[in-house]
């Protein structure tokens, strides 16, 4: 069994699909912090060991907004696996987040 190259960068090597998640925020607003904590909780519960979260603060790096076509804040972008998925909001609706991340089939 060949080990995938990604396993070195991941938190824990696994045969399950890997999730690269980017959370766009604009400063340390309550909503952004809320989104981050919601995200962490969801990831631990459903993607343990398979995810990586990158936080991009557009106040610090505004030029990065155009690349992923960011309009709303907060926005979560799943870059891996493809295709990219965009989820906006504070992630308080867990069901929707899971559907959006393709972790649950949509009704």
């Amino acid at each position, binding site marked *: 069994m060949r080990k995938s190259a990604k396993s070195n960068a991941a938190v824990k090597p696994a045969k399950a699909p890997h999730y690269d998640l980017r959370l*766009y925020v*604009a400063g340390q607003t309550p*909503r952004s912090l809320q*989104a981050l904590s919601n995200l962490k909780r969801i990831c631990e519960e459903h993607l343990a060991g398979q995810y990586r979260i990158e936080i991009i603060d*557009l*106040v610090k790096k*505004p*030029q990065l*907004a*155009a690349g992923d*076509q*960011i*309009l*709303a*804040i*907060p*926005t979560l972008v799943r870059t891996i696996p493809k295709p*990219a*998925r*965009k*989820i*906006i*909001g*504070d*992630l*308080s*609706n867990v069901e*929707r*987040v899971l*559907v*959006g991340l393709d972790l649950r089939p949509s009704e």
Partner: protein
Amino acid sequence: MALTPKEAPTLPKTPTGIEGFDQITFGGLPKGRPTLVCGGAGCGKTLFGMEFLVRGATQFGEPGVCVSFEETADDLAKNVASLGFDLKRLQRAKKLVIDHVYVDKSEIAETGEYDLEGLFIRLGGAIDSVKAKRVLLDTPEALFAGLSNEGILRSEMRRLFGWLKEKGVSAVITGERGEGTLTRYGLEEYVSDCVILLDHRVRNDAVTRRLRVLKYRGSTHGTNEYPFLIDQKGISVLPITSVGLTHPAPQVRVSSGIPQLDAMMGGEGYYRGSSILVTGTAGSGKSSLGAHFVDAACRRGERAIFFAFEESPNQILRNMRSIGIDLGKWVRKGLLHVEAVRPSAFGMEMHLVRMHAMLHEHEPDVVVMDPISGLIPSGSAFDVLSLVLRIVDFIKARGATGFFTALMAQDDVHATGLSISSLVDTWLMVRNVEANGERNRLLYLLKSRGMAHSNQIREFLITDRGVKLQDVYLGPGGVLAGSARVAREAEERREELIRRRDERKRELVLRASLASVEAKLAALEAERNSYKSELQTFVNEEGARRKAMASDREELQVSRGMRVNGPVKDRA
């Protein structure tokens, strides 16, 4: 202390550079505030916004940002390239930023509260990067289509427009016309300073575009619908050039090119800067009057444009040459420009703009449109009338003289389909008269404002030396022209001859009588003289005889001794 209307400050304006638009808004769009430009699909709103940005960057030193929600930057650049706008170059020169904001409902899941700060950050970054003063948002309605939380969207919209005002940029927001509402998602709620409505419909197979300033807070503006068009220089709005009838009234007269016609107008011709209409049926010779006028103008060194709607330039030159008018030489000298256009090729607005452009470029003193009735297929009679009105206006404002021909049904002296006859200063009519198996033409000078003019009808002859006018004859059946006139002239000459001959005869007779009486008189005179002398002789002789007898008697008596010195004795 209340402000009187005069003191109330008017909102400052920023010029768009769009042809005609700054005129009807008396300065352009409200500076530092948002303007809503709405209309149906394809009406030109994106173009309007782009032209606002591009001209801002190239003509007014105001860089701009375009946030396009529907088209990519590449597509936009391609679309406006045909208008001569080089977006890529402007971007490289840091005069323009184009940001494509992509909103796809299927790609986005909404999972709680959010705001549109990402948009603000992008827009703010773009504005700051080039120090933009102008912004185009085309069209924020895409947000409503892509995101479902209307409450959030509405409050963010409100925040956006407040934010734009704070940034001090002049913004154009586009919106698509809704069913019975100005925009589909009610953008007019947030943009209340200025609303422009664009309309485009297809009429008579031609596209007609109209622009209307629906609202402009704090400013006067033209409230009409103005036709506009989009050509290779961008948008051109066509305002009526003069709001009031304030044309100057020149006193100078110019020759019509036909001396007898000038004679009918007090010997001088048309007023410079006036408008002349010639109506008549087909083939009545209206164009030849226009050609004479142009010829006369060019002879004076003036410039002319001949707009032809039914014939090609070559046809016109050939036709006029055959009647002795050489327009070709004026074309070669550059004084005359003949522009032939098929009326159905364009809508009214396009015709208008093309003519405007040519008048600007060529700067004529004389403008001929032959025939204006030819334009009717490409617009209704009302459209043509309003087009001609605008052209007449424009021509008069430049001090040029306008000469128009129009096809009109026979005997249509009073009712004209165009009603333009009341708008022109001089109205000539050429009419065909049929009699004795032939058709002749008569020219009527129906009106000519501001001058004493003949009310006589003239026969209108087209010879190979041009147009000649001839007095008509009034016969028992009415006006005589053509061969009937010639016949009448001959008859009158003959009558004259006969009358002369009769007079001559009478004179001779009288003279003869006089002569004979005088002869008689002479004869009697002679007789009188002879009797007189005879009488005289008789009297003389008688006297002499008596004398002789008396002396004889005396002698006898002396000799008889009856008498010497004694008494005569009696013999007895």
